[in-house]
């Protein structure tokens, strides 16, 4: 609410507001709210609506006013308005584990810079300049919090292969530059991006942080640089600059749904930016935000949920705490899709002869405008279904609120990738360990490939390892179903860039060929843990160091959806994206390597220790050099002849004392006989006397 107040004030016409603003002298956001309440004739709710609609009107008019003359002057080529396009789409999908996936997809396109000069109408200038300056062919930057659950949220659909990203920041760029300039440009690019997105992407500048994969990450890429920061925390400060790239920010359209507390409360949050630029087509900026949210946090009985209780009912207003009140007026396309998983549709068809969206299993809270069916490769199976909702039909009074109400408990599962990949560390201690990547068959590739004949599955592993994890690549071992394999039998292609201390991370690109019948396969690599330089350690005791996620892709499997060819599909960038043929990919977990942490108080100890030793050494050396033995002997003799004052006094005192304590000492003669020669009772007595005096003195002083 606060946010809307702030935004509307500057947009509202001054003449409309001035009178009431004068009555309340408060500035800022609160002023507006009080104003709305103070107006007597219309009820307060109406007042805000009124304000908002005027603001919208203004928004509608403003671009026309601003853009109109420019267009007119832009002149003869005519298609200037269509040259830059913006589209906004949202895909909602119920997930089998009682969560909801929301995928926002914003796309802006701009013509090649030659045609329209430096100026853009919709396309963010910052990105256009970035592309121009650094000669970017392709760039992808993602900020992710949480892990994508490949088992429950899908592993083979386009959503997981392109939008599931490793935790933290991942950046890769394909440059259109001669190979000698790539590294320098990358360094500048990281700094620019870190300024643009308020993130520490500049840590990728150092040559130890990024790598240049040849074919393992992206096919035939010489000018590609890849870097990941698994530890980067993602927050609203990264989202705000990302939203600034949208023409309507988050003030209107689908982006207005982005309620910060709700989207950061989710189980997965990935904010992605992808730029593709080509000479002919111009620049395409694709901004996506994928969040997985838990509809309602009400604690339900977990025991009965196994048997099957209702999936939680959800709607946009319950998940995002907001509704859609109209599209971003600058958007060419503004749609909301609701996707039903393939197996859910199968489940649906099993129960009921499906006619429309009114069915006995669930109820949609809004009427979809269209239903799009997936064309499955195997015709007898049912494909996923998309319900399309047009945002343009909604307005302030009739907001769009897509949701689902379940009537019958349903259990379905997600499509899996052929193998479930996990990566882990083996061994313990600070010296060495091993890195293992294990592939567990999900049995789903049989449905992709069909048939049980001798087939093989290609798997590409791309792994970057920081230099302080010193991997011995010759120790690569591959096990298939518990049997060790000859490495050359399994490996198709191999590319290793060994790490260099403090200079280069190690990069491993592996293409493996496994038999289809494999149930589990494992790769292991041994490594030693290196020592960091003292200033490379974090200042305090640390948790450990990270190994970034590995990427495992399956070139034999394509994750794409195909829909009925239709004109309306052409203008939906999201669905076009879904129809692109991409490899199935999955990222593994980030790993934590505990390294030896030196005791940093050690230097202090060493300094004190060395100083002591040096003092002792120099003292004795000086003693030896300075001393003249003859003279000393003479002195000793003279001293023997004439005893010093204190020994004299002491001996006198002791003789007196001895006389006095003669009686007592006589009673215990055995003591003197047992004790050694010099340590007579005399000496003991002296010591005790001194100690007693000291104690008495201390006691006396303290009391006083």
């Amino acid at each position, binding site marked *: 609410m606060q946010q809307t107040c702030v935004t509307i004030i500057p947009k509202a016409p001054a003449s409309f507001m001035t009178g009431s603003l004068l009555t309340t002298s408060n500035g800022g956001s609160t002023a507006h709210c009080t104003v709305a309440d103070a107006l007597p004739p219309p009820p307060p709710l109406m007042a805000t609506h009124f304000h908002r609609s005027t603001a919208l009107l203004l928004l509608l008019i403003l671009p026309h006013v601003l853009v109109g003359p420019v267009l007119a002057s832009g002149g003869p080529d005519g298609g200037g308005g269509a040259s830059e396009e913006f589209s906004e789409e949202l895909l909602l999908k119920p997930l089998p584990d009682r969560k909801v996936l929301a995928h926002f997809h914003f796309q802006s396109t701009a013509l090649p810079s030659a045609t329209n000069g430096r100026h853009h109408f919709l396309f963010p200038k910052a990105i256009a300049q970035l592309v121009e300056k650094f000669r970017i062919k392709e760039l992808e930057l993602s900020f992710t919090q949480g892990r994508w659950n490949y088992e429950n949220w899908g592993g083979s659909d386009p959503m997981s292969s392109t939008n599931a990203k490793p935790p933290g920041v991942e950046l890769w760029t394909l440059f259109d530059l001669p190979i000698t300039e790539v590294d320098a440009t990358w360094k500048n690019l990281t700094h620019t991006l870190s300024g643009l997105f308020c993130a520490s992407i500049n840590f990728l500048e150092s040559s130890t942080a990024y790598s240049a994969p040849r074919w393992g990450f992206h096919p035939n890429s010489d000018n590609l640089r890849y870097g990941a920061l698994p530890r980067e925390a993602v927050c609203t400060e990264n989202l705000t600059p990302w939203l600034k790239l949208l023409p309507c920010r988050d003030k209107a359209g689908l982006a207005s749904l982005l309620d910060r507390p709700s989207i950061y409360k989710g189980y997965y949050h990935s904010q992605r930016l992808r730029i593709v630029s080509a000479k002919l087509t111009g620049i395409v900026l694709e901004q996506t935000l994928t969040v997985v949210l838990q509809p309602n946090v009400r604690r339900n009985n*977990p025991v009965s949920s196994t048997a099957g209780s209702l999936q939680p009912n959800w709607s946009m207003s319950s998940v995002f705490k907001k509704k859609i009140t109209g599209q971003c007026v600058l958007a060419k396309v503004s749609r909301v899709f609701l996707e039903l998983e393939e197996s859910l549709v199968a489940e649906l068809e099993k129960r009921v002869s499906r006619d429309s969206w009114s069915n006995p299993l669930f109820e949609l809270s809004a009427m979809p405008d269209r239903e799009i069916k997936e064309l499955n490769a195997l015709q007898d199976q049912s494909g996923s279904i998309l319900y399309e909702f047009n945002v343009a039909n909604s307005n302030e009074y009739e907001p769009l609120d897509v949701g689902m109400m379940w009537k019958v408990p349903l259990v379905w599962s997600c499509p899996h990738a052929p193998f479930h990949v996990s990566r882990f560390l083996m061994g313990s201690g600070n010296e060495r360990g091993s890195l293992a990547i294990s592939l567990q068959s999900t049995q789903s590739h049989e449905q992709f490939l069909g048939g049980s004949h001798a087939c093989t599955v290609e798997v590409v592993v791309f792994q970057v390892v920081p230099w302080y994890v010193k991997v011995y690549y010759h120790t690569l071992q591959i096990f298939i179903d518990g049997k060790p394999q000859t490495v050359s039998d399994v490996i198709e292609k191999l590319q290793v860039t060994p790490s260099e201390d403090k200079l280069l991370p190690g990069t491993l690109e592996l293409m493996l060929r496994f038999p289809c019948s494999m149930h589990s396969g494992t790769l292991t690599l041994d490594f030693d843990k290196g020592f960091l330089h003292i200033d490379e350690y974090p200042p305090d005791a640390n948790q450990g160091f990270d190994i970034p996620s590995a990427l495992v892709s399956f070139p034999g499997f394509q994750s794409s959806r195909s829909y009925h060819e239709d004109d309306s599909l052409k203008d939906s960038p999201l669905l076009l994206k879904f129809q692109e043929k991409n490899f199935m990919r999955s990222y593994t977990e980030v790993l*934590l390597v505990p390294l030896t942490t030196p005791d940093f108080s050690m230097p202090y100890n060493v300094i004190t220790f060395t100083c002591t030793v040096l003092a002792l050494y120099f003292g004795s050396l000086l003693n030896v050099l300075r001393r003249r*033995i003859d003279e000393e002997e003479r002195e000793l003799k003279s001293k023997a002849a004439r005893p010093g004052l204190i020994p004299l006094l002491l001996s006198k005192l002791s003789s007196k004392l001895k006389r006095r304590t003669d009686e007592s000492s006589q009673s215990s003669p055995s003591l003197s006989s047992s004790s050694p020669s010099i340590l007579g009772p005399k000496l003991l007595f002296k010591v005790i006397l001194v100690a007693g005096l000291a104690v008495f003195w201390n006691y006396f002083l303290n009391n006083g």
Partner: protein
Amino acid sequence: MATEEKEKPKGGAARSRLIVRLGAFLVSHNLFVSVVCCIAGFIALLLLPVLAKNTYISENALMPGSANPAFSAQDVMEANRFVKDIIDQRTIEGTGIEIPRLVGQHMAGVGAEVYYHKFLPHKNQFHPLHFFSCTPNTVTVQNNSSCASFGVNSVGIIRAPRGDGKEAIVLVTPYNPWKIELSEALSLGLAFSIFSLLSQVSWLAKDVVWLAADSQFGEYTSVSAWLKDYHSPVFFSESRKMNVDVCHESNSHQDRNHITVKGENANAFRRAGTMAAALVLKVLEKKERQERDSLTIYAEASNGQMPNLDLINIVHYLAVHRQGLRVKIATIGSLLNSVWLRSVGEIVQRLCRVAKSLDPRWKYDITSADYVEGSATLASSMYHQAIGVPTGSHGAFRDYQVDAVTLELSPGFSLKNENSQSAFFLRGGRLIEGVIRSVNNLLEKFHQSFFLYFLTAPNKFVSVGVYMIAFALLIAPLPIVAVAPFSGKNEIRLSTDKGNQTPGYTCTDEIEISIGSWKWLHAAKVVFMTHLWAVIVLLLPYFMSQIPYISPTTSMLVWVAVATSALLILYLILGSPYSNDCEWVLLKSVMIAAAFIGLGLMSIINFSTAQIGALIVVPMCLIVRPLKRHKEVALCMRVMLMTCNLVLAVIGFPPTALLILKGLSEGFGRVGIGDFWVWAEFLWIWNSATYLYLLLVHLPCWALYVHILLHP
């Protein structure tokens, strides 16, 4: 301390180099120094309970108890329902898989990832090279061994909602699926309710793993088997797997082999990152009724390793200040009632009062009852560390550098009572939730607090800087006494012609030693031979454990017989120690040097073993004299020395010491010769370095001691 004391009288008349003179002085008064140091060492040991400090939570990031516990009556109901389910399952005759499956289904019900970990118990065998290696003995089970028996752990993992999955917290509940008891069911119920609570919370940053460990082969076995598969899995596992499969078909337990949850393959091992900490949760029903529910903390892992003190601190803080539980740690019960300890306590109390009146800043205020309890706890703490055997399944975690403790909750009232059971669940659940939340807050590893410490009460500890004083004092006289024979003659000469001899003093010293060096070599040969013999004795059990069906008594007798004959054979080969006139003084000094090195090394490996060992070895080394050489001293001294020597000779021999201890505690009727064999077996099964100490340091020392006693 002693050195300073001695320095004073001599310091006034310093003539040549101070250090050399000081050393010479100490050596010349070795008898006095050793007596003083020894007594001071014993006194310092007795004073440790007084010097114990209060514990405090050192790592600020832990923030225990800063959040309100969310564990509510609803969770208690869930726990009760789960316990009821388990108890219902108990009545059904089954294959032992029902309860693991029930636990697994419940885990899956709260949205966790579930899998079943099957493991085979490993056979206990003596492996001389496996000491210090972190993994316990793993023996592939032979075909003929009972293949029907393998355990099934149910493991559930909650992935932290927004976490990156790099770290995990482990919760362990051991139970026996074949014969589940009410207390075990309660611990499972408690763990389940916490688990289901944690699956809902949003503050988790680390994954939570719940291991319901099948303890039919012992609690430790199942946990260590799981940890081994977690950290160092064997991929080349064809033979073992086949074995299991074969067993399956023969037993027609097809369902045990492939358990599925929600259609997923539940046999694939899953992991959850580096472990940050582990809690082993147990419920124990005590016979006697108490006022309050109580909590016993067990922390000792193998070879005297302890978890970080902060982990114990947060448990103690939350249990006492938040949940009002009575926290206990293990004590030696017999010491609590001992009269002499109480009288020592009285003296200490009086001394403390005097010290306090001298200087009020000395806050050594301890009552005699506190002292007795403190020292009984300290003794137990030291004993458990010294024996080198973990006190529970948390020990398995320490082998992988994971901090872990066992929390044994025992309810104050009968568990049959529904109300008290609910209250008990509520307290226990809130405690565990708080501890997990605290550990979850931790950004770093546990590093802030102590790793080397003794506990004298749940909230009092003695750190390494304090407890090593006693040990240092005990072994300080050893090098001095060892050097003494080499400078003894020199000292005499020094006293005879004092006049012009001083400058050439160091020179004559060297000559003396070089003259005596031949004899020294003879003594060293004898010592070397004894140590060689000790190594043989150490390795003998490896061969004897290969013999099947042998009773402990026979084993022990064979061990002793072979050891004795080995000694005799060594005599034949290398010559008797008495043959070439080897002086007993030199033999003693070399033996002391060897013992000193042995104790020093052991103090690095396992301090408590070295500490307790030093209590016996140091007097033995210092007091030893041949029985026939006592004629020159007075009669009363001679009798005293002889009795001391004989008593030490008996106590110093490990088997007799064990038998006497056992006889005193359990009555002499039950003591058998085989007991020592059983005990030694126990030590090497657990890879305890104490076994190495006993046979490589203590036994040769004792053998040489007896040699010297019998010296003609």
